[in-house]
């Protein structure tokens, strides 16, 4: 058998060994990676401290009685009080807000991405307005809600429908929810815009090239694809709104109500506001502390539960989109 000899034009095999390892210890590289790790650890530490503190101190005060009782006027007594109306009120205002904010936010985002000319002055003004809306302090939204929804919309509705007796022209669940909807609008708009932009232009072109109108393309191709992203916007809006107190302060929250809210024009009690009340109005701080912790824990769990529901629905939608469509 012939032995294969390498042709002469091939270079000689390298003989010396090359060292790729750095000779010197790279201090800055080590320092910087350590710094990023520490920063992350710091954030995690804070989060863990808050959550553990609430969990440990709040858990023992939570009972079925606590979450299912409508309290008497003196709700500072740890043995008799309950937070049912606050749970119902917070859940209601978040759900009503979602019903308003999703359609308005989605339609605005559709206008911005699908219809408006990207470079036109109007589009740029709307975009800037949306971004600025996100930066407005929440108490300002509260005052806006009072001035616009209650004193303008509500009072005029009463003048029209109820002979000027106060039905809508006072703080109410609907106005608190609408105020929150205005506040969370940018979240939904931005999330929807991002998900609309992420849809390949080829899909829109394919639909249009088949003779679909723009509306048909948006409804049948674009929106179903954007649904998970829209729901992400909804989840973020819910998380943001559930714990907010300032926007509802003048627009719907009550210090105390003897019954659950039954109508959109009713006032309501709220977990976040109740936390504020418990921590500032109590005649006996030591006695109130366990129920304060418990109320905070209930608020966290409610926000978590609302998020979980939305995330589960989104996962179903995603799965369906991936499998079929």
């Amino acid at each position: 058998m012939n032995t294969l000899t390498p042709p002469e034009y091939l270079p000689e095999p390298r003989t010396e060994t090359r060292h790729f390892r750095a000779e010197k210890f790279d201090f800055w590289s080590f320092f910087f990676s350590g710094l990023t790790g520490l920063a992350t650890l710091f954030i995690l530490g804070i989060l863990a401290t808050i959550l553990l503190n609430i969990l440990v101190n709040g858990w023992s005060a939570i009972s079925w009685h606590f979450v299912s009782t409508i309290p008497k006027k003196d709700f500072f007594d740890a043995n008799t009080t309950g937070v049912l109306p606050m749970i119902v009120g917070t859940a209601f205002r978040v759900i009503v807000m979602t019903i308003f904010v999703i359609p308005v936010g989605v339609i605005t985002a559709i206008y911005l991405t699908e219809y408006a000319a990207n470079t036109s002055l109007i589009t740029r003004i709307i975009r800037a307005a949306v971004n600025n809306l996100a930066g407005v302090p929440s108490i300002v939204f509260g005052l806006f809600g009072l001035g616009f929804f209650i004193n303008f919309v509500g009072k005029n509705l009463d003048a029209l429908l109820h002979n000027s007796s106060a039905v809508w022209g006072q703080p109410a669940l609907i106005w608190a929810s609408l105020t929150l909807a205005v506040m969370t609008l940018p979240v939904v708009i931005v999330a929807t815009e991002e998900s609309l932009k992420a849809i390949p232009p080829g899909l829109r072109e394919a639909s249009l090239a088949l003779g679909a109108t723009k509306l048909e393309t948006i409804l049948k191709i674009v929106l179903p694809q954007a649904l998970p992203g829209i729901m992400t916007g909804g989840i973020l809006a819910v998380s943001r709104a559930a714990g907010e107190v300032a926007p509802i302060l003048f627009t719907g929250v009550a210090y105390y109500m003897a019954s659950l809210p039954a109508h959109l024009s009713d006032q309501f009690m709220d977990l976040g506001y109740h936390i504020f009340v418990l921590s500032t109005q109590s005649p006996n701080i030591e006695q109130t502390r366990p129920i304060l912790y418990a109320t905070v824990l209930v608020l966290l769990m409610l926000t978590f539960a609302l998020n979980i529901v939305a995330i589960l629905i989104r996962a179903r939608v995603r799965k369906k989109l991936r499998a079929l469509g």
Partner: protein
Amino acid sequence: MAEPLIPKLTTPATSAATAKASAPLIEINNLSLHYGASKALKDISLKLEEKVVTAFIGPSGCGKSTLLRCLNRMNDLIDNVRIEGTAKIGGHDIYDRDVDVIELRKRVGMVFQKSNPFPKSIYENVAYGLRLHGMKAKSNLDARIEECLRASALWDEVKDRLHSSALGLSGGQQQRLCIARAIAIKPEIILMDEPASALDPIATSRVEDLILDLKKDFTIVIVTHNMQQAARISDQTAFFYIGELVEFGATSKIFTNPTQKRTEDYVTGRFG
């Protein structure tokens, strides 16, 4: 809707032979297209007959895709596009103000460079256009979908999984599905924008066979970068260079005996 704005292109009485002799199906006259200030197409004039495969060739940026997209007005989607001259299909200027773009696109189908099936089932992909144009009954849909998938040589590969996602198909299968989707609404013309450029040689040859097959029923305009492909599948070839139509004629002539120096240089691979 009133009378369709573009009348049916094949008049009932004409046989194939007389149709060939009659006015060309696509007639482009002195068409120029501007993107803002830059001129992408310069004074293009071109006549294409019915049931003929025409290849548009030329180096990147020569305007061949742009011209293709003029024919179903996909350029309408881009801002700042200005078009001069006329593009007639079946004797009617498609840029006339009263032309219904939806109706136009129904008659002038398109297959894109990157296969773009909808993220829906194989069945729903083909059903989409049919439903848009009013076909609702399941039995009709089933029959037409099978017909189209057979015509696009995909039926045997997908008949057992019509209701699974189109995104699970291979690249070549996806592109054939896009062709099935395009022919489902029975267009008269199919525009193909480099339909095989992202496919491997085997998938490419299948798509090419398919195009030759579809020629019996459709007028096809195909943009391609692949010179051999143009030579294999087209009857006529138009060579574009920087927005100009340099030469147009029978494919055999363009590839063996072009009149223009630039055409010869391009098809022999001297530039481009």
